């Protein structure tokens, strides 16, 4: 019995989720319509502005406490990310140089000819240039 009850519960949830999915677009449009009202858009914008000041104050406030416990601050972590990013860039430049060296050593011997014609597409892909074909 408990198994049936569980399955029924799942079915009900499935049905509820399906109902939500079917109506989501309309509800989202209602919500965005509301957010597009001047007063609402202005309030959202001001909330974001306030959150920026809040985050700045929090970051500054935390920095002293973290330093006291000899722990890295947000700025320390960001600086580490910046250094890692620069290392990645440097490795990528080396990789690109090696690829260019390899390609120039092969002197284009492995490159395919640039002779392909448009009719190769219709022959191989069955494509069509008619813009209404897929409508």
């Amino acid at each position: 019995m408990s198994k049936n009850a569980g399955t029924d519960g799942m079915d009900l949830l499935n049905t509820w989720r399906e109902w939500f999915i079917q109506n989501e677009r309309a509800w989202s449009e209602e919500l965005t319509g509301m957010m597009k009202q001047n007063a609402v858009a202005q309030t959202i914008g001001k909330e974001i502005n306030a959150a920026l000041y809040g985050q700045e104050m929090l970051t500054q406030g935390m920095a002293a406490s973290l330093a006291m416990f000899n722990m890295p601050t947000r700025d320390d972590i960001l600086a580490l990310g910046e250094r890692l990013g620069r290392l990645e860039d440097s490795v990528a430049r080396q990789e690109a140089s090696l690829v260019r060296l390899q390609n120039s050593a092969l002197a284009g011997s492995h490159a395919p000819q640039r002779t392909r014609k448009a009719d190769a597409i219709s022959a191989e892909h069955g494509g069509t240039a008619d813009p209404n074909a897929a409508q």
Partner: protein
Amino acid sequence: MPPSSKTHPGDNGASVGVMDSHRGRLAALEEEMVRETAVTPKELIYARGTLRLYHYLPQTPDVFRIPILLVMSLVSKPYIFDLTPGQSLVEYLVRAGFDVYLVDWGVPRLEHRGLGVDDYVADLIPDCIAKIQAQSGVMDVNILGYCLGGIFATLYAALNPTGPLSSLLLIATPINSLGMEMQRKLLTTDGLDPDLIVDKLGNVPPAMIEAAFQMLRPLQKASGQFVLINKMDDPAFIKATLRISRWGADALPFPGRAFLQLAHDFIMENRIVTGDFEIRGKKVDLREISVPVLHIVAQHDHVVPSAASGDLVRLVGSGDKEEWVIKGGHVSLIAGVAAVTKTWPRLVSWLAPRSI
């Protein structure tokens, strides 16, 4: 009394077990997806700062003469172009015999907050094109731009009417900010201060970008989760859906200066349409574009609504220009199932005669 987990503790235990099992399967799927993403063979031919220029290795005995450069938005990762085998625009183009290059703008760091739209349009894109010319030995190039990448490609085309551009292919590219109501409202109602964001943070963080996208369709994420739960027995569907939602959540920081230029000059003042948008002191006139232009837009695009994208083809000066309206949304346009079976074959048929 209706059945509930409180009245049937045994059932509660069973459902927890089911949820654990679902979580385990999702984690395994996630690992598989990572392995299967962006796997079309490529080589890195140029790196500058965070920029990477990739060349996809040809897979046909011969290729079309003119190479194509794919230009992605700044705030999304370019692997949407090469999502997974069978669902990859790059793979499709390479197999059709195109010589494909892709510019990955990378993840900007605080030191890149000074990068502006002019740097991308007047410096980085031309630099990539020069590298492609050197690699391919061909002076002409086609460009495909997606979303914000499409704006950059359009601005580049307008600034270089006698340049190497052979044709311009745009996907879901906003051009008329009057059609981007939500963004305009946020920025023009004396609420959100874009300068404050850049002043405090340097670059606009990815979480803020993702939140901005979610505001455009607030309940879509919840709906997506429910779709997944209801389709747990269909791993192929789950993977296809998760791939796209994973990409959507994988936003990039927006370089501060570029964000400000677009917020002020594009969104608030609509300068691309009025002809007053400036790149390094030169006004951009879309009527200068004379190469063939194709713009593919989605019928139900909540990110770039047709009111924002629909004027592009009208504004460019080209004689050979088309707009295709495809059923679907902003992302399904480029990586959905219908894209694979319908949009890409048509796209390739348009591009092929313009690539010889």
